[in-house]
């Protein structure tokens, strides 16, 4: 425990967020440890996706949004107005519910980010593409058809590709918002396996409706309800003996 405390990657302090007059996050305090998978669970509208989107400032795009509190990532408060969003979003990448490859080839999808960030040498880009696709276990499958449209890949491959795009720009925090909800059980299993492998090098935060998935894949779990973080702790504790009655009611399906 002692040494884990030294490796906090994200620290959220008294975070409040409003969409106009609606308060979506209420006094959230949490610490996300480096190189672990943290799951955030809770019913629809509980604020879990909003919390995820705070980390790379995706909520900035929403009109009337107001944020108070601090979110320290590697010692920098990412919600400060002067945060360089380009750098932030390179460092903290996001994977969405539906895979969203660009309508380009597989290769172009992977090197798109590095190109924009100015790492343009052909050899270097080839190298990045290979390493990134290897990291998501796509390289062997696709190396002979990198020029084919990414949209022709299976959904699971597309989701892997989206993760590879983040690896290509050297993100070190991966935010996954319901990454398996569009996938069948087998593809889900494959992505979960990939997540477990990725945590050796990355910090992963996954929002999921699938509690079994949270239980299977994560090291720590946070339960949110009506904008509050009700309980946060080791996943095995949350799923065997939650401390809060509301967590218990939600995970056992007695909720509502």
């Amino acid at each position, binding site marked *: 425990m002692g040494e884990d405390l030294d490796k906090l990657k994200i620290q959220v302090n008294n975070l409040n967020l409003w969409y106009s007059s609606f308060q979506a996050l209420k006094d959230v305090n949490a610490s996300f440890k480096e190189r672990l998978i943290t799951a955030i669970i809770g019913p629809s509208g509980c604020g879990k996706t909003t919390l995820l989107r705070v980390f790379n400032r995706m909520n900035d795009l929403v009109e009337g949004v107001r944020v108070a509190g601090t979110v320290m990532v590697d010692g920098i408060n990412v919600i400060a107005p002067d945060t360089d969003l380009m750098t932030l979003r390179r460092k903290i990448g996001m994977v969405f519910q539906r895979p969203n490859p660009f309508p380009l080839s597989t290769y172009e999808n992977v090197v798109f980010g590095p190109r924009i960030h100015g790492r343009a040498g052909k050899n270097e880009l080839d190298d990045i593409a290979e390493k990134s696709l290897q990291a998501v276990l796509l390289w062997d499958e696709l190396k002979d058809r990198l020029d084919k449209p990414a949209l022709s890949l299976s959904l699971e491959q597309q989701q892997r590709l989206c993760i590879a795009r983040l690896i290509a720009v050297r993100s070190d925090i991966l935010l996954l918002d319901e990454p398996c909800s569009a996938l069948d059980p087998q593809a889900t299993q494959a992505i979960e396996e990939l997540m477990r492998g990725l945590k050796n090098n990355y910090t992963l935060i996954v929002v999921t409706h699938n509690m079994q998935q949270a239980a299977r894949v994560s090291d720590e779990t946070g339960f949110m309800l009506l904008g509050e973080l009700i309980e946060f702790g080791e996943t095995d504790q949350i799923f065997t*003996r*939650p*401390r809060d009655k509301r967590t*218990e009611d939600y*995970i*056992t*399906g*007695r909720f509502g």
Partner: protein
Amino acid sequence: MAEHLQREIREMKKAILEIGAVVEESLHKAVKALQERDEKLAKSVIDNDVEIDHMEVDMEEECLKVLALHQPVASDLRLIVSILKINNDLERIGDLAVNIAERAAFLATQNAIDIPLDFPLMAEKTKAMLRKSLDALVNGDSRLAYEVCAADDEVDAINRQMYLQVQDAIRRHPDRVESLIHLLSVSRHMERIADHATNIAEDVIYMTEGEIVRHRTEDYPSQSRRV
């Protein structure tokens, strides 16, 4: 889906209580057969054990089914795991009641021994522990469960006392050694039953508080402690 699981859980609670009732009855009869030197009653306990065995197997299958189909978590998970283990303890208590009945059947064919061994007290305490542990299970009452754990020491002490008394009796009545050894076995079986009742109580504590209290060297905590 959750409603469906809750229905299954209600059924399981009912089923484990039925097993508990049958086992309690079995123990009660075995002790009665011993005290009243009733060979026929003793035989009925022995014959009835097969029913307990069947109930145990059915209960276990039900638990495995619910675990596989519903993948329960938190208190639901703890309840089902506890039932799975308690089921096993109850079946063992049933076997021990049979062992007592076997001794009772033998002793009923022998001349009565006039030694003041206080079996009624030991039997009462043991039966009370079993009943309390089952009440604790039904009501999810860990306070009651802690009482059962504490009562185990008393039964252990009586068992030790029995040992000394029987040892003494053998010296004085060496011709009755066989019967006396049977009586000592009864005491030992009773003590084992109390141990199983304690196991049940410990599982109830786990079920209600999420704390595994087995193998603690210190006294049982009066309340759950969370780290």
